[in-house]
């Protein structure tokens, strides 16, 4: 199921995923598979989801992100969402979406620093 065209980068044990701008449902679920497989393959300590090009997050997308974070957690990893757009943050809040238990950072830089800080 690694057929989706999204790059998962690895930097020092941390996976960085640039989530595409307006992915269809197939890419969203494919992304989950790809991330989890990469987690295992590289024994990563965590995943940074870079949402800086994502301009729409509906409930399906949000649900998948939350589920993926839970799965990463079960595999012993940590998830940080980085770079969410203001318009998405405002809409998600209004929609009642709480990305419970997922940390958030302004950008990949600070997310990486945070990830490194606490083992």
């Amino acid at each position, binding site marked *: 199921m690694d057929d989706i065209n999204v790059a998962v980068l690895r930097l020092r044990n941390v996976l960085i995923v640039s989530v595409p701008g307006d992915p269809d449902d197939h890419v969203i679920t494919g992304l989950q598979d790809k991330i989890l497989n990469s987690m295992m393959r590289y024994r990563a300590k965590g995943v940074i989801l870079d949402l800086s090009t994502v301009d729409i997050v509906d409930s399906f997308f949000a649900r998948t992100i939350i589920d993926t974070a839970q799965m990463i957690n079960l595999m012993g990893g940590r998830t940080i*969402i980085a770079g969410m757009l*203001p318009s998405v*943050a*405002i809409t*998600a*809040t209004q929609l009642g979406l709480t990305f419970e238990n997922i940390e*958030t950072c*302004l950008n990949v830089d600070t997310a990486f620093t945070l990830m490194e800080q606490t083992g």
Partner: protein
Amino acid sequence: MPVTSEDWERRKRFVNFTEADAKLLKQAKSHMEKHVDEVVNTLYANWQQYPELKKFLNSPETVERLKVTQRGYFLDLFSGEYGESYLKGRMRIGHRHQQIGLDVRWYIGAFSNYVELVTPHLFKALSKDLDKLQGTLLALIKLINLDEELAILTYIAAREEVISQQHEEILELSTPVVQVWDGVVAAPIIGTLDSHRTQMFMERLLQAIVDTKSPVALVDITGVPAIDTATAQHLIDTINSVKLLGAQVVITGVSPAIAQTLVHLGIDLTGIMTRSSLADGIKVALDRLNLCIRPKGAA
């Protein structure tokens, strides 16, 4: 405020402009067509005597063009058709006059010029039928009155547009977001937070956080006189949105009165940092950024 078809029909009913009136005006058309050029020329001759109007009639070509439009306007009065397309045409003309900056009084006065010039011709044409003459004259006066109403509405609508724009500007100006240090933005809120203002505030605050890459935002509510459930909800929404970005909000300026209100209202503020002064908020922010301020020369 565009006038709907329903409004227009209602206005006609109010001044009692009926189908019979429309018919009378239509019947007068053939008489009026003979005099239209004379009427239009007289109108412009009069208008050119006034500098406030003359400035719009600045070249012979312009005047000729305007006279053509004027003829159309004049003949429309006797068209017999006073429905939606008549309404739209009149609104367009009114809008145009307002746009070029013509004082509304000249515009209204011109209607009187029309009635003065048209009435003698009507009398001559219908002198043998006094009932018809009265009916046609009244129909014309009613229609002119309706046209005047539309003219006034267009000018009012333009004013309201200006007021609305100024309102937006005031909203913008009264929600400044400033960077007080590397990594700290502060946004004082003055006045009350309705949902529209909250929208604007949230967008500006979040954008400032992203632009300055600030992990801490101080939202100061010293200038908020009273807080109710709705305002508290707006603040909570703001805080949650900022959290999603990866930054932290500290609400500062929580006065004793507001503290009491929040507790009495049962607002759940667990997990939300608050301080009674902006200065204390800055201390929290610096702390979060692992910074501290100390006197020069101290170890």
